[in-house]
């Protein structure tokens, strides 16, 4: 009996050893730092999700699940949230995880030096109740707070103090810029910025590994053609992203597999709601046609989104009707139809608005920010010309693009928005609320769209605990934005990954590559 058990155990060990594998992957961006609080950007947070962990994390379907906290509940009538922490967790340097580390990470991540500061704007205080209980108090009831902190990663207070890294330092860098010490499934064993980062499984991880990786190496490869060649030649096991134009070719190759999905990012057109006149028009110098909702609706009807997706995105994106995609929390299913492609209706609306002969204007567009962004803008220019409004397209690199938008140098612009909280409230706060510097509202609402009811609903949405009531308010906001055509949502940006055929992995809509879901067969 005993012998058979040990034989089984041996066989298991052997089987695992046979499956143990090296894994290499490449992406176009190197995470610029290993400090989880220094930079709030997807390449950094996505990478560090393999090394550090938060109180909560997102599962394969983006739902919130327990990580360093085993449970959480609202305190009183929404004064805050109580988190019960997981016991027996150790950091990769061996020190124990306690509530002190959570408090420290809150102070670090919400400090003036941290890029993640805005996540903690609703927090008034953090109280350590005991070693494994922590209360996070909020200034107002905040139903989505646990959803909003999935990327808030916990750092060991002792490690940070010993290495003089108690605050992130973006300007000069510090120990935490190049080194990491999380509680996650993988630890960083080598880090050469811009060159390679090596991860190895953390033996002391509290979870049960689903992967069979013994060593993983990440290399940034900027040039898309080189990345595709590296995948085809077997030098790397996985690349992200795959250029859209190479999808068909990779699909034809039996040794690789293309994994397609949609991202959280909505691509949309924005308008100068507040402007008195168009900036780049040949004939209308004293009016702003886009201030008229009929003109904005005409734009929505003029654009043939399915055609754009078929030709430019090669069928790998989905049309969008709202500022969030259907996969996000708070999406409104009843408003899922986008305005039909109807050039006649568009012309009629323009005539009704007093522009039977159309007008000319300037369309601003980035050319290196979103997938095929410039090609999309060219297609839009052509479609708008068919209904009589003539856009002059000005496409530029994104580093020049944002300053232009901030300076109001556009008559129409292309924007992509990915809600950091995966909730419909996020774009309302940033894109639809009347810009207000002090209240930190509408900071990406370049056109100055303003609607009193939306401004009234936003704080109510933010503090409503009851899900049904909250959804009703989100629905109302979505309806207002759709009726007023505050923006013209076009499509959800596609997500295209490429792997070798013997790799199993999970693609998440936030474009985070989670190593602990990878199996090499």
């Amino acid at each position, binding site marked *: 009996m005993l012998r058979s058990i040990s034989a089984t155990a041996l066989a298991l060990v052997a089987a695992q050893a046979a499956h143990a594998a090296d894994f290499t992957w490449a992406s176009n961006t190197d995470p610029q730092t290993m400090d989880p609080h220094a930079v709030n950007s997807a390449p950094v947070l996505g990478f560090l999700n393999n090394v550090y962990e938060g109180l909560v994390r997102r599962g394969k379907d983006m739902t919130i699940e327990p990580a360093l906290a085993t449970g959480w509940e609202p305190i009183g009538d929404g004064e805050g949230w109580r988190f019960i922490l997981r016991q027996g967790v150790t950091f990769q340097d061996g020190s124990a995880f306690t509530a002190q580390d959570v408090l420290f990470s809150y102070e670090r991540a919400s400090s003036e030096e941290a890029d993640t500061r805005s996540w903690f704007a609703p927090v008034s205080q953090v109280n350590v109740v005991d070693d494994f209980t922590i209360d996070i108090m909020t200034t107002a009831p905040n139903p989505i707070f646990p959803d909003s902190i999935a990327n808030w990663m916990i750092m060991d207070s002792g490690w940070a103090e010993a290495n003089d890294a108690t605050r992130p330092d973006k300007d000069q860098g510090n120990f935490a810029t190049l080194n990491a010490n999380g509680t996650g499934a993988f630890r960083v064993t080598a880090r050469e910025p811009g060159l390679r980062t090596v991860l190895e499984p953390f033996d002391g991880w509290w979870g049960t590994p689903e992967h069979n990786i013994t060593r993983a190496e990440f290399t940034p490869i900027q040039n898309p053609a080189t990345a595709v*060649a590296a995948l085809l*030649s077997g030098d790397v096991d996985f690349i992200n992203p795959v250029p859209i134009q190479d999808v068909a070719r990779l699909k034809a190759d039996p040794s690789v597999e293309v994994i397609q999905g949609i991202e959280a990012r909505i691509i949309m057109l924005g308008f100068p709601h507040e402007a008195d006149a168009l900036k780049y028009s040949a004939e209308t110098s004293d009016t702003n046609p886009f201030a008229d909702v009929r003109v904005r609706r005409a734009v929505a009807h003029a654009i043939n989104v399915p055609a754009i997706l078929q030709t430019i995105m090669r069928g790998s994106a989905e049309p969008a009707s709202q500022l969030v995609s259907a996969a996000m929390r708070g999406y409104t299913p009843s408003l899922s139809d986008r305005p039909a492609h109807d050039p006649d209706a568009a012309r009629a609306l323009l005539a009704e608005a007093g522009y039977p002969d159309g007008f000319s204007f300037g369309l601003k567009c980035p050319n290196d920010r979103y997938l095929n962004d410039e090609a999309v803008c060219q297609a839009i220019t052509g479609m708008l010309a068919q209904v009589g409004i003539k856009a002059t397209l000005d496409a530029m690199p994104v580093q020049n693009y944002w300053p232009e938008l901030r300076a109001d140098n556009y008559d129409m612009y292309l924007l992509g928005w990915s809600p950091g909280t995966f909730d419909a409230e996020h774009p309302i706060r940033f894109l639809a609320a009347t810009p207000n510097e002090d209240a930190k509202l509408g900071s990406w609402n370049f056109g100055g769209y303003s609607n009193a009811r939306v401004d009234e609903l936003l704080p109510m949405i933010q503090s409503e605990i009851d899900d049904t009531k909250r959804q009703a308010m989100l629905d109302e906001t979505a309806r207002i934005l759709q009726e007023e055509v505050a923006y013209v949502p076009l499509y959800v940006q596609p997500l295209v990954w490429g792997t070798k055929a013997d790799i199993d992995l999970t693609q998440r809509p936030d474009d985070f590559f989670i190593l602990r879901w990878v199996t090499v067969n």
Partner: protein
Amino acid sequence: MLAFVIQRVAQSALVLLIVGLVAFSMFRFVGDPIDNMLGQERTQADIERLRTTLGLDQPFPVQYYKFLANAAQGNFGVSYRQGRPVSDILMERAPATLELAAVSGFLAISIGIGLGVFTAIRRDGFAANAIMSISLIGVSLPTFLIGILLIYLFSVELGWLPSFGRGDTVQLGGWSTGFLTKSGLLALILPSITLGLYQMTLIMRLVRSEMLEVLRQDYIRFARARGLRERTVNFRHALKNTLVPVITVTGLQLGSIIAFAIITETVFQWPGVGLLFINAIQFVDIPVMAAYLMLISVMFVGINLIVDLLYFTIDPRLRVDRTKAH
């Protein structure tokens, strides 16, 4: 002599200052680094504060002056993207570029001279004509395309050589070398061919035409008449006399090998300073761009200065002319 040297050095310094000034005046057209440095949830106040902290709100001559003042003390600032001193980053990346340039230069010179001599001696042979025709590819195809073609042939189709990167490196003091590992040497092959191909064909064509010129000279005929072996005539007498212009051109091309490494490094994801510069442009990492441009211009100016000084010592006419002029 001393006056000449001082004058040349002063001219070089002036060129450097002007290059820097032009570079700084261009940086604002590359874009605004602030949006890259702050996340999606930044406010206008954050933007203004960071702009002031970085000194980007000041006019470019002021920014340039501050850069020079710091650079004079060996401080090239901190990379916006990596948050580490630029001098550290450049030191990390320089070995990759210099090793690649050295191998490319060696290939270009040795193969270029060899083929040049061959095609000159067998000027009407089939092989020589074939080489001459093929060499047109090296001159006319862009580096980018050659690199991609080599990757597809040798990495994707044949699977012989790595498609990107530098392989394993060995750390010798502060220098990381790829010469000591098998994967490091294999990784050098495609990028060094890509980078050196243009120079190779250039040197080959130069050597060939010089050789053809020299082979017509009387002293070659006399050497042949004296019954010297063909080998001795070709290499001792002819090749030696073609080398003067070849050395001049090669010296000047050395700088461009390092500067043009940008494209090769991007295609092969070669972790050198050229790739660093491309990344810096995408991110508007001004300290890295400034340091790289200054480094490259120091190198070019330095090479030209040395060439000037060499001419001065080699060519007596220069000296005579100058004494007359004074």
